[in-house]
């Protein structure tokens, strides 16, 4: 699948847009996980179980984001 990996008209520019995105997405992933956990705990009165689960998932999502971006970059 070569043709779609770059341009026929010139060298593909570096994918720096993803780098702009990565830093913010790491923080947001953790905030989303912890925030979702806090909401669930408040709703179900189970504090702090879902907050902890949300935190683990949020940190996991942040790590997944790094892995995903690295994977995509290496494929390019």
């Amino acid at each position, binding site marked *: *699948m070569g*043709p*779609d*990996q*770059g*341009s026929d*008209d*010139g*060298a*593909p*520019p570096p*994918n720096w*847009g*993803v780098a*702009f*995105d990565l830093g*913010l*997405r790491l923080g*947001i*992933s953790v905030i*989303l*996980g912890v925030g*979702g956990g806090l909401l669930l705990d408040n709703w179900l009165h189970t504090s702090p179980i879902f907050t902890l689960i949300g935190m683990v*998932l*949020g940190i*996991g*999502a942040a790590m*997944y*984001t790094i892995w*995903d971006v690295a994977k*995509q970059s290496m*494929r390019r």
Partner: protein
Amino acid sequence: MVHVEIRAEELFAIGPLIVTNSMVGALLASAILLFAARWFTRRSGIVPSRAQSIIELPIEFLAGIVRGTGGTRWRQFAPLVLAIFLFVLTANWLSLLPGVGTIGFAEEVEGKKVIVPFVRAAAADLNFTLGLALISFVSFVAFGLRANGLRGYLKELLVAEPAYMTPLLTPIHLISELSRVISLSMRLFGNVFAGEVLLATMLALTTATIFILPLAFVIPGVFIGLELLFGLVQALVFALLSMTYITLAIAEHREHGSDEHPSGESPEQGAAPAHGAA
């Protein structure tokens, strides 16, 4: 005294629709783009005039990037990416015009008289940036669906590689997807809102030095110049990230197809239907 509220201020209401000053900013940017497009399509020629060249310059610049990184299907999403870029750029630069954010009606807030501007930078309102981010999100989901098919897309989103990891990895994947929308919207909002606050602060500070004329004009001038640059960069980042997400949504399918079938043209497994977008 000029003040900047984090929330867009209400100007008037049409029935249940509350019209805020950031909505006026967004509508003005749309109107400018519509008139420019109408003027441009009527007067453009094969040999461009000077004005036409100036208008074509940013479009050709971004079109070159989209052509370079967008893969073979760049023509499908180039109009969307260019429209997002021009809209955000116009909205950002509109906010730097004299009168925008400074002319309004006086209102008393906590005993102090403040100006509620008639027009405010559209991107200094989270509703605007979130709306744009949602358009971008829906677009890359739609392009992913078109390339992957519904089954293939859901499989990609919800089923992890070792199947027993699915209960753990699916919520992680969903959080990661959702973080794209929030990161897109918060970045644009944060930068533009911070620019508004910075300009208001600088104007307030230099008002005190009005008798030292060079300072009163030079300092706000420097920051307005910087805001011109930031407005361009933020519009570019928003448009390029939208393009990157769309490209990845299409490329994921191709790579999966090429993993399973070296030709990559005819995935025969039911989970990954054929290319929807030729």
